[in-house]
């Protein structure tokens, strides 16, 4: 059960992370790997849906979704067929803080794959028919999720936690906003974000540093120089201590809860991460899992995690339980949070958490796609190219006092913003409102009316 040997696993990779200098001051991180005939590339641009104009949420998401729907001389159908003929996988996505491109190809098609990636990033067409088509697709997804209990709870939580802040706006937009977005708005978002000075690149596979440098140079040559990002203030979530009920005719209540947490580069991020792992992190022995699921059978799913966004650190969690057990479940969860704040972990829990976090780190690096993703996140988070080598030592060095202090700060008085969707009982003092549009049968307006 020694953790020293498992800690060596990511080290095998770190010795191989190479910094590849490209033109225009940019760089790419590379893990050269020749045993599997696959090349995975991830490219990210800082500034995701938080860069949406206040009156037009969803622009960045729609822009990202349209990047592979026609570029340069290739209309959408031709572009997609060209990918298909070579089995090149290229997709674009966005979250609150970044726009991301994921590329996977067989090595023999690498030049063409990179060419298509470059074309998509530098010269997207945003043809009217493609805008309309993908806009409809995203709208349909919004309508589908409008009364999904978990999705509704999450959306309501962010709207309550971040009023007036970009994080409080729906990252995927609304049915109305998507319908109002045209080519000009998309070109504007594209011009502001997809630039040389804003790019982060990770590559894994059968490609030499020299070759990668050449490919990246060609990609950069086609991009404009400078991004123009809206300044997003760093804030703490609001409404902590409040409970919101959104009534929906379902037998189970879906709950999202949370409060402020550390930013990724805060000094106590790692101790806080350890404290959360013990409370509700991803193994079958967390306190929440034990108390809520294992001992009492109150829920199938109960968890908590740290979500360090660029402009707000968050502690978040969720549980889904029968309506008449909602109060009992959230009381138990809150009691565990308070107990962790006041007592901290036991030595045994801390030891177990350190061993798990150290040993399982290697599993984040076990496919090319996952490694490429790690390379990009290490850069976005500005953790340094040596972070993979240092990370397990950082976890190993965490003391009981560190975790106790971090837990006290993280969980404080244990107050939470709680959003419960369903027909929960046992939540005194909650504000209650009906699910948007649930009294009527349809109306696309459902998505926007979530308050």
């Amino acid at each position, binding site marked *: 059960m020694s953790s020293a040997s498992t800690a060596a696993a990511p080290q095998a990779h770190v010795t191989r992370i190479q910094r590849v200098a490209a033109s225009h001051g940019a760089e790419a991180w590379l893990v050269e790997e020749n045993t599997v005939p696959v090349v995975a590339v991830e490219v990210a641009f800082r500034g995701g849906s938080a860069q949406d104009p206040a009156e037009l949420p969803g622009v960045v998401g729609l822009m990202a979704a349209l990047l592979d729907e026609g570029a340069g001389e290739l209309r959408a159908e031709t572009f997609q067929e060209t990918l298909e003929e070579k089995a090149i996988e290229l997709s674009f996505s966005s979250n609150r803080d970044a726009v991301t491109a994921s590329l996977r190809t067989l090595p023999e098609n690498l030049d063409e794959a990179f060419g298509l990636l470059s074309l998509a990033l530098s010269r997207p067409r945003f043809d009217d028919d493609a805008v309309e088509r993908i806009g409809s697709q995203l709208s349909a997804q919004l309508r589908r999720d409008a*009364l999904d209990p978990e999705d509704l709870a999450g959306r309501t939580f962010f709207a309550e936690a971040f009023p007036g802040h970009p994080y409080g706006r729906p990252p995927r937009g609304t049915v109305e906003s998507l319908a109002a977005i045209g080519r000009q708005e998309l070109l504007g978002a594209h011009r502001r974000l997809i630039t040389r000075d804003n790019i982060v690149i990770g590559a894994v596979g059968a490609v030499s540093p020299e070759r990668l440098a050449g490919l990246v140079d060609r990609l950069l040559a086609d991009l404009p120089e400078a991004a123009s990002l809206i300044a997003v203030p760093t804030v703490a979530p609001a409404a902590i201590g409040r409970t919101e009920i959104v009534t929906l005719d379902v037998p189970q209540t879906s709950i999202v809860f949370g409060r402020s947490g550390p930013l990724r580069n805060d000094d106590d991020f790692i101790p806080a991460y350890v404290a959360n792992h013990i409370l509700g992190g991803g193994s079958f022995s967390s306190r929440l899992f034990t108390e809520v699921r294992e*001992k009492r059978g109150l829920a199938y799913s109960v968890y908590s995690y740290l979500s360090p966004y660029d402009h707000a650190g968050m502690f978040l969690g969720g549980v889904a339980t029968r309506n008449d057990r909602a109060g009992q479940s959230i009381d138990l969860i809150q009691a565990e949070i308070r107990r962790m704040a006041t007592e901290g972990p036991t030595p045994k829990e801390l030891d177990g958490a350190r061993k798990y976090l150290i040993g399982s780190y290697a599993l984040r690096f076990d496919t090319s796609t996952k490694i490429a993703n790690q390379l990009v996140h290490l850069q976005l988070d500005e953790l340094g190219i040596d972070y993979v080598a240092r990370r397990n030592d950082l976890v190993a060095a965490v003391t009981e006092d560190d975790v106790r202090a971090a837990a006290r700060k993280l969980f404080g008085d244990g107050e939470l913003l709680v959003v419960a969707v369903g027909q929960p009982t046992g939540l005194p003092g909650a504000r209650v409102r009906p699910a948007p549009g649930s009294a009527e049968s349809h109306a696309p307006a459902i998505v926007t009316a979530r308050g």
Partner: protein
Amino acid sequence: MAAATPAGAVAELKPQTPADAARGAGPDVASFTLANGLQVVVIPDRRAPVVTHMIWYKVGSADESPGVSGIAHFLEHLMFKGTAKHPAGEFSHVVAELGGQENAFTSYDYTSYFQRVAREHLKTVMAFEADRMTGLQLTDEVVNPERDVILEERRSRVDGDPSSQLGEAVAAALFVNHPYGTPIIGWEHEIEKLDRHDAIAFYERFYTPNNAILVVAGDVDAEEVRGLAEETYGKVERRVDLGPRVRPREPEPRAARRVRLADPRVTQPSLQRNYLAPSYETATGDEAYALDLLSQIMGGGSTSRIYRALVVERGVAANAGAWYYGDALDEGRFAIYAIPRAGVPLADLEAAIDEELARFMAEGPTEAELDRAKTRLIADTIYAQDSQATLARIYGASLATGGTIEEVQAWPARIRAVTSGAVRDVARAVLDPRRSVTGELLSAPAPERLAAE
């Protein structure tokens, strides 16, 4: 929201086509059988010093007796509740301390448990897994709360999601005699009555080394695994001999069926049609390979026929596609789905789908379409080699549903050999309305509230 990784997820309530398509030759796979009948498969992947250890039992929800639906999945959860040697939670605790990840899943035809750990811990997880193969001990104290957990799982997956409810109704209508018509997780009223005795009876009937497949993928070689397997699983005695897996078969379907679910919580209507289809196991020739290609050509992404016709050209659908589920011991399924754009009636989508199907059945695929589909499916098998966990799942799922290692490895060649005529013929044979169930998901007015909150 990031999801938790709770024990005992029902991984395949909806069949997943990507995994199905991503069969692959992979590296030098070795296989042998222990004296007690346990089949062992070793898939080397030397890139990182980690291993994926999976045990697959050749038993799933379709092997349940009538009236105890959900017992296969319930038992999967209860397998984490301890043995004579190791009390409840010890195995999970040890896996966590090793920095390992673990989980389990139940499907129609198999139940699988896995751990991912550093290579030097392989023997530890093998010893624990071998111990719980026949050593499970259950008390009402642990069984009863876990039944509540499963009822919550069902509420999450089904009760909160009208489209899942429609999915259950479609499957129930499609399989008029075969237990594939019963949800993997079980019907709520039957889950409520499951107890310790049901679980142990099921366990003693099906959990035995001669009804299991051990798959180890990662930084190991076959001889090493053989030694470890002899020391651990090799000590487990076979406790029952199982005959062939014969479940009630489907009669030849004669009537097109239609199910409709209308609910106030449906905010986006949708249409789906499922056809009873041959699986890799029931097919007599290359129909299953042709069906994988057919699903790619008709509905695999934005260059596919259905997507092009409904989404791009006619603009009636927001999205549309197709999938084929062929990794079944008995009949498989071929499905087409479409999401209408705002204001478009489902009947318009259905008419457009039927036109496309008729055209395809008359003409078959073009050579360019067929080539593109083959390239795509074969590339998936190469991409699969990038993930030892994916390879382990591909081999495990195939072997647990009657396939062989040779068949998995020959899959790309068999795909390459399918002719356009074969794809057209399988479309004509399978896409027959009489073999189908059409499901409509519709919104409905809310019932009037009798009392305010």
